[in-house]
């Protein structure tokens, strides 16, 4: 299997503080990778480095075969990044927001139109496309965020806390959406989250990052074997807490 994301000893220091400490990670084609860790563990910094938005102080990475430090545009063309608490231009409608993103991706308007419609259809916002985004609910905004990523027909999605602050129904819809995108369109997904139960439900593999270090990497079953507890059913939450207490 070819690696979609590959990083070797990727590090980022801010002054004396090390945000990411020699991270080596591989994410493969069509995986749904769960990136876990407490606040301030360096998850977002890692994501920004993978997109070429922050330069690493040491080490290197390859995303879809490109080096983010040197060819960020190639990566950004094919990777959809949903930042934590994504924002929109509230004075524009959903469709206008999507059209702006399409233009930034250099899609001509006649090509963009069908993509906008299909993206709105996939996230279930057809009926709401002409409302001002300012009037959207939180769940709708998150789904519009996904629609924006689909416009560029991405090979890889990087989602930073996609279910944060959603109600149970909104969370379920979001998770189902992520799974269907991965299965039906063959998109690789890397998502960071705190909600371990959900991560366990949809992710094929997880990595746990604490204080800038990747302390665990593998499927939930593998991690359960490595840190044996007293339960019979592997539970990501317990595994996570065991790693967390150790460091």
């Amino acid at each position, binding site marked *: 299997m070819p690696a979609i994301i590959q990083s070797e000893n990727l590090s980022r220091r801010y002054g004396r503080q090390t945000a990411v400490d020699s991270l080596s990670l591989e994410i493969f084609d069509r995986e749904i990778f769960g990136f876990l860790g407490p606040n301030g563990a360096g998850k977002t910094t890692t994501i920004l480095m993978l997109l070429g938005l922050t330069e690493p102080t040491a080490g290197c990475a390859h995303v879809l075969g490109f080096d983010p430090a040197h060819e960020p*545009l190639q990566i950004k063309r094919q*990777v959809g990044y949903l930042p934590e608490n*994504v*924002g929109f231009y509230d004075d524009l409608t959903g469709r206008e927001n999507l059209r*702006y993103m399409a233009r930034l991706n250099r899609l001509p308007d006649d090509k963009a139109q069908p993509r906008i419609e299909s993206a709105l259809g996939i996230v279930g916002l057809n009926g709401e496309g002409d409302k001002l985004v300012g009037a959207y609910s939180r769940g709708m905004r998150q789904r519009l965020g996904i629609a924006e990523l689909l416009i560029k027909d991405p090979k890889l999605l990087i989602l930073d806390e996609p279910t944060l602050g959603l109600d149970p129904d909104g969370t379920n819809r979001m998770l189902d959406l992520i799974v269907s995108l991965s299965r039906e369109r063959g998109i690789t997904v890397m998502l960071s989250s705190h909600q371990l139960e959900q991560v366990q439900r949809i992710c094929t593999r997880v990595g746990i990052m604490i204080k800038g270090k990747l302390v665990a990497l593998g499927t939930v079953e593998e991690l359960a074997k490595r840190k044996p507890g007293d339960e019979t059913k592997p539970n990501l939450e317990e595994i996570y807490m065991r790693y967390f207490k150790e460091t």
Partner: protein
Amino acid sequence: MWTICRKELADHFSSTRFLILFCLILMVALVSTYLAAASVREALEGTSKPSQVFLLLFTTPFSEKFFSVAQFIAFFGPLLGIIMGFDAINRERQHRTLAKLVSQPIFRDAVINGKFLAGAFTISIALLSLLLLLSGIGLMAVGVVPGQEEIGRLVLYLIISIAYVSFWMGLAILFSILFRSLATSALASVALWIVFSFFIGFASDLVAGAFAPVKNPRDPEEIVANHRLAGAISLASPAVLYSQATSTILDPYRRTRNSLVLTGPMERMSLERFQNPLPLDQSILVVWPYLTFLAALTLICFGLSYTIFMRQEIRSV
């Protein structure tokens, strides 16, 4: 870059605050041109061979207490620049769209270039339409057709004004990068605007009074020294630079940048006898240093914003 520029342009022209300020400037400018036209027409009666009348429309204050159109634009032009720049970057930050914007396949400088360009374009359109409207009214009210040279002077005036307002916009954009909060950056730009346009006069007088005091009011040397120092200090303000540069451009009879020139009685007589307007290129020569300085300030402002923005971390916090 053009995509961002296009969106920003649409934002500017549909934003209420731009429309309000533009209408305000337009209204006051219309009234003062009209009144200036009336007083010019009065003054023209009895003059046999008037020359360069058209420009008087812009430089004649319609009453002793009020400004001329040119002075008015010098005061409120900066405000136009400030309202277009003060929230350029930090609004995107606050609405959390900046991280999304830079994760699109564009270079990071496209964001700031696009915004600056859109602002400069809006300023140009606003000032150009203002000037054309005023000229039209002047044509109707005075009935004097401007000559080639007068048109040249007006065009030059327009270009300098665009550069000047763009400078304030650049400054506001710089503050919008430095400060996270919209209110802080707006207040910082407005504070600087007030200092530079209103208080610099007092400040330069004070400093000049302290370092080159006029002990004997009859001693011309002391008066000149005092004035020179005050003038030099007030030139630190782009507002002073601008108003001096444009008043020389608009008034062909001004042949020096100094406000105070000592002349002997014979000299004065000969000057009065040869009171002819300067040709345009000579007027330009007189204010050339000011123009380059103004352009340099605008470029420095933009360059500073550019470098800071390119080095800033894109944390979505």
